[in-house]
């Protein structure tokens, strides 16, 4: 579109060209204003995190202050167990998702089982069942299985939570493996195993990375299950965040620092994975 627009623009008479240019600038300004407005709460969170507590709860809000790292220091002094639990639950469940999801996606795409559509829709249907509906019984099951307040429980549940998404996504990457490549490998006498490791994996591995990133985002941010099923031995970052809100006293700067620390890893991951984010979240429907 842009390539064909360029020669057209040079042929345009002066006034029209001016109108088009000011149009472009105008919409650009609108986009920038809206973008900044949308980003403002995040920016405010980060700014507040650098305030001394006394400067965080003032009227009018203060925009000039001498920044301090005191609140960050405080956050880092207490986050140890929480960040460890979050990291284990996130990485553990993501690995498990890939181990289960890659073969499943293969069986639903490259050499599909007979009722692959039903299989695919079964997985997605589990995303529609509200897990909140089963939270009481889930608590009782965890209690009886001695899994309450254990990191294993979170790994198990986060895997189930992310698996449907991952299968849909990985499947869409596998569908892109050229048929000729599979054919060539077959003529070479490659079995199923070699087909996966030598033909499919190299093609889909960038896709697996973006799948993993999306699983990481959802597992890292999860609160409901962690809040209901863990206390201390497996409490995660979102729970640390809640614990940073005390019943009394000034806490806004501290809260903002904790919120910044908790959010930044995923924000950075998301910025890097922007392009594959849509694809993952649309379960491969959009390329």
């Amino acid at each position, binding site marked *: 579109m842009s390539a064909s627009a360029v020669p057209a623009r040079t042929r345009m008479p002066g006034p029209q060209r001016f109108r088009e240019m000011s149009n472009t600038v105008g919409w650009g300004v609108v986009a*920038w204003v809206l973008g900044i407005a*949308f980003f403002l709460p995040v920016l405010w*969170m980060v700014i507040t995190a650098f305030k001394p507590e006394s400067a965080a709860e003032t009227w009018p809000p203060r925009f000039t202050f001498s920044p301090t790292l005191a609140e960050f220091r405080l956050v880092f002094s207490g986050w140890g167990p929480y960040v460890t639990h979050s990291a284990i639950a996130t990485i553990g469940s993501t690995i498990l998702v890939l181990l289960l*999801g890659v073969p*499943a996606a293969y069986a639903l795409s490259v050499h599909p*089982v*007979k009722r692959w559509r039903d299989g695919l829709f079964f997985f997605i*249907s589990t995303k529609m069942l509200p897990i909140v509906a089963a939270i009481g*019984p889930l608590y009782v099951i965890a209690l009886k299985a001695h899994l309450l307040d254990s990191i294993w429980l979170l790994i198990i549940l986060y895997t189930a939570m992310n698996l449907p998404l991952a299968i849909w996504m990985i499947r869409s990457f596998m569908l892109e493996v050229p048929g000729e490549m599979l054919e060539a490998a077959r003529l070479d006498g490659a079995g199923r195993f070699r087909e996966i490791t030598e033909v499919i994996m190299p093609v889909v591995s960038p896709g697996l990375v973006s799948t993993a990133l999306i699983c990481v985002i959802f597992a890292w941010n999860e609160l409901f299950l962690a809040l209901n099923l863990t206390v201390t031995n497996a409490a995660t970052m979102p729970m640390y965040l*809640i614990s940073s809100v005390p019943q009394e006293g000034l806490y806004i700067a501290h809260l903002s620092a904790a919120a910044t620390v908790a959010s930044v890893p995923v924000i950075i991951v998301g910025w890097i994975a922007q392009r594959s984010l849509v694809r993952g979240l649309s379960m491969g429907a959009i390329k």
Partner: protein
Amino acid sequence: MAVVDTSTVLVPEAGVGPRGASRREAWQRRLPLLPALIYTIVVTQIPFLVTLWYSFQNYFFDLPAPAHFTGLSNYKTVFTDAAFRSALWRSVLMTVSAVILAMILGLAFAMLLDRKFIGRSVVRTLIITPFLVMPAAAALVWAGPMLDPNFGLLNYLLQPFGVHHVAWLSTHALGSVIVVMIWQWTPFMTLIVLAGLQSQPADALEAAKVDGAGAMATFRELTLPHLRPYIELGILLGSIYLVNVFDAVRLMTNGGPGTSTTNLPFYLYQQVNNAFDIGGAAAAGVVTVILTIIVATFALRMFARVFQFEGASS
């Protein structure tokens, strides 16, 4: 309990794989699927079966008495409980309004981002960021630094418009929660619609321009029909996630004031955590799941249709 029966929705697939494939071949195909399938059935379906079981039991886990059968009494309680009905209604209201408004905003943002301007990728990055913020962090930052009546940034920014120290979370609790839901999900809608816009064939738009079609007409006649599956997909996926919103309710308003922001997830959470009523929560859960299945059946139908365009392009 599961929404497994999609066979009515989908045309049975004919002619997959070589004809007359042996039983061994069929198992070879099935084998890689089994671990994920069994895992998902065990982890996601068993809790719902147990929920069904407990929904017929009287069981408070703060009491020493063991669970015992009480027939339909839990269901009777659920259906006569005004709190359950209002939570159900509020869930619908919150989900529908948040999804629709996020989609409208997302459409607008996507149209803007589809234009060329300086720093476009920076603006896109700014716009997707709310989606990446940990929902618990978003809820707490909105509740405190943003919406606080005494030092919140929003009141300060709205001062020129005659707004003075509004206690948003007590006077406009439901609206505030919905605003945060919209803020977090607009980026997702934007990205999906943007993907749709960018997949629009340029020559069709050029042709419309040459034919002298106005911007509005082009949008209505060409762009909107093209975007339809993308919009449907965004609404579908947004609903799946937004109907389960818990963090914002728990951390911004704790369901209040009164029960004015209590949605179903928060109601069920309270049943378990405050009332210790496993049986009652289970019955409410079963009713929720049945309602979900009814809605999901339509959603799956929509899914099957939406994902046609995936099949067509590959």
